[in-house]
């Protein structure tokens, strides 16, 4: 059973389009994250939700909008795609970041490779 799954695995689209990436975790975790990995493999956190509440919102263009319908799902919608959005996007989850859960490791999905043409 896949712990953290993402769809689609590959996404190729034209500049200006709007696209979404979906993430689901079956680990019962309270916290979910979106990361962007660029071509140099640098990993940057974008957003984090704890129990459907946004807790981390790094400096990300407002074209990116996360949405958590329930604590097992965290989707990422991107409007007006730009060339610079091309990257691999990883979803991750962990036990709650609050209190004693703060030292729990993260579980990552397989990634979604987004290519903007």
């Amino acid at each position, binding site marked *: 059973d896949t712990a*953290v799954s993402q769809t689609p695995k590959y996404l190729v689209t034209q500049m200006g389009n709007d696209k979404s990436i979906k993430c689901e975790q079956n680990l019962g975790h309270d916290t979910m994250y979106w990361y962007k990995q660029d071509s140099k*493999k640098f*990993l940057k*956190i974008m957003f984090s939700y704890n129990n459907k509440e946004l807790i981390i919102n790094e400096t990300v263009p407002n074209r990116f909008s996360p949405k958590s319908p329930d604590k097992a799902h965290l989707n990422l919608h991107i409007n007006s795609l730009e060339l610079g959005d091309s990257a691999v996007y990883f979803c991750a989850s962990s036990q709650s970041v*609050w209190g004693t859960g703060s030292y729990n*490791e*993260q579980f990552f*999905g*397989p*990634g979604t490779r987004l290519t903007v043409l």
Partner: protein
Amino acid sequence: AQSVAQPEDQVNVAEGNPLTVKCTYSVSGNPYLFWYVQYPNRGLQFLLKYITGDNLVKGSYGFEAEFNKSQTSFHLKKPSALVSDSALYFCAVRYATGGSYIPTFGRGTSLIVHP
């Protein structure tokens, strides 16, 4: 502010030799430190973590890491490298800010184990 540094972009080692992947950190208060591994076209996988207690932490696939508070380091080690250990390794630190813990990752170190 907190930061994590992985000073080497790439580490090359011969199979059977010991390997070390370096990580240093800067954080206020006590750090929680992690190592993750990323194989090609895969997501990151957790290897090991230091929370408190014994400075030598053992993890998956025979890896271990030593927490050194005075040198603010958390180097990843393995006594005998395998070709299959070739991958990208990330060090990460979590710290307390405003009651939540924000994970910060290093830039990654590519480990290449030669047969």
